[in-house]
C-alpha cells in the first residue's frame, strides 16, 4: 500500500528488523565469547549495546507518532502494539547478551570448567530459537510461532539440567564455586533469551490473528 501511513509502517518494520539483526549478532557473539574464551569479543558486545538501546527509543518514537497521528485500526493497530512489545523483548534479549558477555569475560580469565554437554545444548537450542523467532517476525509466520513455543520447553529442561550438573560439580570442587555460579547465571541468561523469544512469537500471533495466546502456548487456529 502506498499511503504515507502504510509507508511509515513499512519503515517501522525495517527499523525493527535492523534492531533484531543487531540483537541476534550480540547473542551470537556472546555465546562465541563464552565458548571461545574471547575477552575482546565480550568487551565489544558490552561497548555496542547502546546502539540497540537507541534503536528501541527510535522505534518507540515512531510508534507513538503513528498512534497519535493516524489512529490506526484492526491489523495496523495490532501491528503497532505488537511491535511495541517486540522491541522491548529485543532490548531485553540484548541485555542478556551483555550479561553473558560479562560472565564470559570473567570465566575466560579463570581455569576452564569441564565441558558440559547440557550447557552446549542449551546454547545451541536458545540460539536456534532466536533465529526461528526473528524469521517468524520478519515473515509474520504463525506456524513458526508455534515452533518457538515448543522449543521453550526444551530450553527450560536444559537449563535445569545444566544447573544440576554444575551443582554436582561444585559439591566436589569447592574452589570452582565462583566459576560455577557464574556459569549458572549464564545458563539462566540463555533461558531468559528463550522466554523473550516466546513473547515475541506470541506478539506475532497477536498481530496476525488478533488472538492473545500469552501464558498458554496451546495449539491455536
Amino acid at each position, binding site marked *: 500500500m502506498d499511503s504515507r*501511513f502504510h509507508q511509515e509502517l513499512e519503515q517501522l518494520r525495517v527499523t525493527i528488523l535492523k534492531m533484531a539483526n543487531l540483537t541476534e549478532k550480540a547473542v551470537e557473539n556472546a555465546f562465541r565469547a563464552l565458548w571461545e574464551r574471547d575477552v575482546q569479543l565480550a568487551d565489544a558486545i558490552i561497548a555496542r549495546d547502546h546502539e540497540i538501546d537507541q534503536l528501541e527509543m527510535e522505534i518507540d518514537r515512531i510508534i507513538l507518532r503513528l498512534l497519535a497521528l493516524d489512529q490506526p*485500526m*484492526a491489523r495496523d493497530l*495490532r501491528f503497532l502494539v505488537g511491535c511495541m512489545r517486540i522491541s522491548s523483548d529485543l532490548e531485553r534479549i540484548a541485555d542478556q547478551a551483555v550479561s553473558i558477555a560479562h560472565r564470559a569475560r570473567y570465566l575466560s580469565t579463570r581455569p576452564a570448567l569441564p565441558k558440559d554437554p547440557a550447557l552446549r545444548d542449551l546454547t545451541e537450542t536458545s540460539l536456534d530459537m532466536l533465529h526461528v523467532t526473528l524469521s517468524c517476525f520478519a515473515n509474520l509466520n504463525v506456524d513458526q510461532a508455534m515452533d518457538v513455543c515448543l522449543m521453550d520447553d526444551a530450553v527450560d529442561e536444559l537449563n535445569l539440567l545444566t544447573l544440576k550438573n554444575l551443582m554436582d560439580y561444585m559439591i566436589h570442587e569447592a574452589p570452582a564455586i565462583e566459576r560455577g555460579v557464574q556459569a549458572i547465571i549464564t545458563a539462566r541468561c540463555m533461558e531468559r533469551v528463550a522466554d523473550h523469544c516466546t513473547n515475541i512469537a506470541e506478539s506475532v500471533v497477536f498481530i496476525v490473528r488478533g488472538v492473545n495466546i500469552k501464558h498458554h502456548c496451546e495449539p491455536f487456529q
Partner: protein
Amino acid sequence: MVDAKIRIRQLSYSYGGAEALREINLDVPANAVTAFFGPSGGGKTTLLRLINRLNDLVEGTRMQGTILLDGENIYAPGVDVPRLRRRVGMVFALPLPLPGTVRENVVCGPRLAGIRDWGRLEEILERSLAQAALWNEVKDRLDDPAVALSGGQQQRLCIARSLALEPEVLLLDEPTSGLDPISTAKVEESLFELKQQYTIVIVPHSVQQAARVADYAAFFLMGDLVEVQEGTRIFTTPQDPRTEDYVTGRFG
C-alpha cells in the same frame, strides 16, 4: 443480541433499477448506540430513511422485506406515519434550525403535538436541552435567535428538538460532519447519556468516530451488510477481509 428494538429482515431496496440495499438482516438493540459505517454510497442513509419512512414519497422505488419496531411491521397497512416519526426521530448532517428563538425551536414540536401547558413546555425545554448537552451553554440565551448559535450548538439544538418529542429511537445521519472537534466531542458525549433512555442509530462521519461511540457496529459496502460486531471488535479484529481493508484505510 438482547432486547432488539428494531428488527430488519431480508430487506432489499432499489431506486429505479439501482439496488441500494441487498437482503439486510440486522437487529438494533435497545439502549445502545448502533453505528452504520462504510464508504459512501453503501446504503446507510437509505436504511436510516427507511426506518422512519422518509422514503415513502420517493418515486420509482422498490422495497422487499420487513422492518419491525417493537415487533410491529412499520410498513403494515394502517400504520400512523406521523406517530411513527414521533417515536423515531431523525437528525441530519447539516444543522437546520427553524427560524425563531432557541426556545421556539425546541417547543414547537410538542406544541404541534397538542401540548399547551406552559409549565410542561418549560420542563420539556430544559430536559431536552440538558439531554443534548446544551442547557448550560444556552440557558441564558433562550430568547436569542437559533441561528445566532455556533454550528456545534445548532446541531445539538436539532438533537434537542428531536428529543422534545420524546422519541424512542433517535436516528443520526453524520450529525457531526460539519463540526469542530470540541463540538463533535460534546455531541458524542451526549450520546452516552442518551443511550440510557433511547435506542440510537448513528451514521458516524469517520471510522474513528464509529469506534468511539458504537456499542454495536455494522459495516455496509455497496448495499451489503458485510459484518456486525459488538463493542470495538470490528475495529480491532474484524472478521471479514473487506472490513479489515476499509478500517485500515486500504480503500474507501
